[in-house]
């Protein structure tokens, strides 16, 4: 089975500021900020990403264990989905 992928919501605009991230959701008219870890995952999700790909990205950029990276990425994905910051995309064929 192919793993679910996620990408930024089309109404989302993202920019970096002082190593953090600033997000505008134009559909919801909401403003968010995220830390550098969140910013790196959102930057990656400009293109569809799986949870595994996000975890590998964190492992490449931060000194952390795979278990911690997976837990962190999973929790971040859930929060982003809840806020409609990201959307699920069809799995790659």
């Amino acid at each position, binding site marked *: 089975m192919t793993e679910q992928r996620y990408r930024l919501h089309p*109404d989302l*605009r993202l*920019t*970096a*500021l*002082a190593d*953090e991230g*600033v997000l*505008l*959701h*134009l*559909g919801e*008219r*909401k*403003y968010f*900020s995220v830390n550098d870890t969140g910013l790196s995952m959102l930057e990656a999700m400009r293109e569809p990403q799986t949870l595994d790909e996000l975890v590998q990205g964190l492992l490449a950029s931060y000194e952390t264990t795979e278990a911690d990276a997976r837990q962190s990425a999973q929790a971040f994905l859930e929060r982003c989905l809840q806020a409609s910051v990201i959307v699920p995309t069809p799995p790659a064929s």
Partner: protein
Amino acid sequence: MSSTSLDGALLQLEHDVAQWLLNSRLEPESWPRFVFREVSALDANPDTRPVFTQPTVAIQAGPPGGAVRIRWDLADAEAIVDEFLPQATISVTPDVYARTDFFLRTMMVVVLLFAMRRRGRFHVHAAALQSPSGEGWLLAGTSGGGKSTTTALLAREGWRVSTEDIAFIEPAAESTVGVRGFRTRLALRPGGAALLQVESGLELTDRGKIGLWPEELGGSWIPVIVPSVIMFTSVGNDRTVVQRLSTMDAMRGLVQWSMWVLFETVGATEHLRLLSALTAQTRAYRVQLGRDLFDRPALLQEAVG
């Protein structure tokens, strides 16, 4: 600008809008194209997008459509700002002609803000001024938050004023962000005018304020400034309190006072980029303005170094 009728009142309105833009000192080549037409009544609104209501206008902008619909609720008038071009078609009923000043200040200014986005200029609700030593300041905040009075106070100290509250951010030299001002009179409330001991000026009767050009206070006008300081102002008590803000708090404040960044996809990426760059190039402060400022106008400069 052009009108679709030879009606004298409509031509007079068109003339008044042109004069308003001339007074603003925005470069004529940057003016949006406004096309006016007179209608006996507005059609029913077919737009199903959510309505954002401000005190005098109802705005529908953003996905799924690209054009912006602005309705003026003091008399029947409606503007449709083009999806991509800096132009708008504005339908007015004859009721508008008796309230031209109010129409300019509460309707046309909103139309202008959306049209200028299509020129790559993005509104910030802030005063913009430059110190005698060349430092650019933005004073952002709500109406009644002390922007005009502080601007007038600093104009009296020889500062150059770009705008009282209609500022447009735009790219400037060396990757900086500049602020271009829409020139209007500084509109002082009676309390502010009394503290400044202002004895002259134009009575803005419908607003209960006194209007003064910066030059009447000893200052001068400047078209563009490059800010290095942002202050989010509010009116306090006796003592002025200045608090340095973090970068993220500064950005949050700028988004609040440049809120159209949240409203439409047109220009949103560039608008956000400019706000971010502006935040990065400035020091930001939350300032409670106190009465001590009127005894020591240099106090703010001393507080921010």
